[in-house]
């Protein structure tokens, strides 16, 4: 029973990390109807920019590499870069593709992901970098002694960060003026335009917010597995989460992430040995597919009615 719980909790915590990436997708899809395949590349780009800045800033500014403020300066600069990226994307891509079918926009974001990957590696080099956030990847002592559960401290912190981020986003969407405008745009582009909400600025904001989410996801994933090209595959981890939860739902991304994370780990442990293991590459997709057959719009997606 203890082992089962351990796997389950480990899966749920991993699921929060999937949800973190999926969240970036949902934000952009809600506001502009674009399924942004480049989210994985943005995670990679953000993490690489952050690491690259922490490496080079001391030399540029003449600071000591151990100074604690360095982290925050690098974080701030990375955020600025992500805002800049959002602005460039809106200015040179989205604006020109208004009124194109959704599939065209999707393909454009695949092109964008190649572009971002190329630029990121061209700027900072392709070597694998370590990223140390100062959180040890070791079991939480109290739980290990009292309940004999091996729960990583790092996972716990990461899941907490993800939870806080979601809460902040929910508040931002619910109570700020910009958040209300974002929800209006998500609801109906034309109606939003007609009451004077500037669509293009909203798109920049929402891509920038997705960029901030990418920074958090990039830092967490990067310190776990190293900052490397494989970070772009986090997008592939997030896609089943996304379709399971529904493309337009923030809570859906969280619940979907938890379901995928937990069932993936449980399947790997209890089902994997029978088929030779390694099933985590496709299991989330098949699971999401089964859910879709019952609910074609995902768990919390908007119901879509076709009219001729």
């Amino acid at each position, binding site marked *: 029973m203890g082992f089962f719980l351990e796997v389950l909790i480990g899966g749920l915590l991993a699921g929060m990390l999937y949800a973190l990436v999926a969240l970036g997708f949902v934000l952009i899809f809600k506001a502009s109807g674009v399924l942004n395949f480049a989210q994985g590349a943005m995670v990679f780009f953000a993490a690489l920019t952050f690491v690259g800045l922490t490496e080079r800033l001391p030399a540029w500014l003449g600071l000591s590499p151990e100074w604690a403020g360095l982290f925050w300066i690098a974080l701030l600069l990375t955020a600025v870069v992500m805002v800049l990226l959002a602005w460039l994307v809106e200015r040179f891509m989205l604006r020109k593709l208004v009124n194109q079918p959704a599939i065209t926009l999707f393909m454009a974001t695949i092109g964008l992901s190649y572009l971002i990957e190329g630029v990121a590696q061209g700027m900072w080099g392709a070597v694998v970098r370590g990223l140390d956030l100062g959180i040890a990847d070791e079991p939480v002592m109290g739980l290990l002694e009292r309940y004999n559960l091996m729960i990583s401290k790092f996972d716990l912190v990461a899941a907490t960060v993800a939870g806080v981020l979601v809460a902040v986003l929910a508040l931002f969407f619910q109570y700020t003026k910009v958040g209300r405008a974002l929800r209006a745009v998500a609801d109906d582009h034309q109606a939003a335009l007609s009451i004077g909400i500037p669509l293009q600025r909203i798109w920049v904001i929402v891509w920038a917010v997705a960029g901030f989410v990418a920074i958090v996801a990039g830092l967490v994933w990067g310190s776990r597995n190293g900052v490397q090209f494989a970070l772009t595959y986090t997008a592939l981890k997030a*896609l089943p989460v996304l379709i399971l939860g529904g493309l337009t739902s923030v809570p859906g991304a969280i619940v979907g992430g938890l379901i995928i994370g937990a069932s993936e780990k449980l399947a790997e442990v209890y089902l994997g040995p029978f088929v030779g293991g390694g099933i985590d590459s496709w299991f989330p997709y098949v699971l*999401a597919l089964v859910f879709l057959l019952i609910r074609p719009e995902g768990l919390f997606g908007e119901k879509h009615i076709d009219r001729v």
Partner: protein
Amino acid sequence: MIYREAGQFKASYEEDQQIFPIKQDRIVMAALVAAAFFVAPFVASEYWLQAVLTPVLVFALAALGLNILTGYAGQLSLGTGAFMAVGAYATYNFLLRLDGLPFLVGLVLGGLSAAAVGVVFGLPSLRIKGFYLAMATLAAQFFIVWALAKFPWFSNYSSSGIITAQRIEIFGFAFDTPARKYLLTLAIVSLLALVAKNLARTNTGRSWMAVRDMDVAAEVIGIPLMKTKLLAFAVSSFYCGIAGGLYAYTYLGTVEPDGFGLDLSFKILFMIIIGGMGSVLGAFLGAAFILLLPVGLNVLMHTSVGALVPATLASNLELIVFGVLIIFFLIVEPHGLTRLWQIGKEKLRLWPFPH
């Protein structure tokens, strides 16, 4: 002036329904096909035949398969690579396990296996649409590649699922040089392209387009959705399967499951975007463009222009150019190279007096 159809009257239904209704088009097409069959194998070097022309044809066939599903029937698929893998591995196993099976029969059986798998993974398309369906085809992509690598039976217990193509022999004639392999590929691809071109003009093809444009409306006017969608998946996967077989047998010779990963699927998707969705010509143009782009960039990097680019950027330049080109194409010409070709033809008809 030379490209004008004035004076070409159509006196029968057969003439009216030709694939190329304009005489000049027919001449150019015939010359092109003749050149591909009779000139290219003798003129082109072994490198060009082996590393450029054959893969262009193979990828054009795969792109044609995807174009049937995505361009004509409107079902976005990200699992093309997996269906190619099924074709390659099924062909290998049929030829391996059935003694004396002719190569072409094995290839067709491989294509049919891919079609069967395609229908199974096409079943969700009856219930889910759009992006949700694209994700469902991703399930096929990951599952099939995983299964081929995991179960050693598929690759006859070779290490890490690598298969090596057997010798190709048809009626005692061995296809063993690059030129012969190229000719075999060309023959198969031209035949299938002709079939696809005609298929798109039949009742089936028109049903696909109706489903693509709006499936509820298509159902209302009496098009059986299930049959049409599944047929699109079957035909498309058959083409991809044959392309996979050729990929393994006439192009690479040795393949592994990971070679059929998501990157391959995306590559083929780009071919139909850049070539033009819903067009047979587009598949060929797109395949040629995507495959020749790295070659061209490579040549460029070795000239004086290449020296100006910093070394760290150079290795990533292909990715960047690729990404920029895709975005550029989608913005400037969402209908791809085919549309540019058509515009060119229209211009040529009026030239030199456009008013």
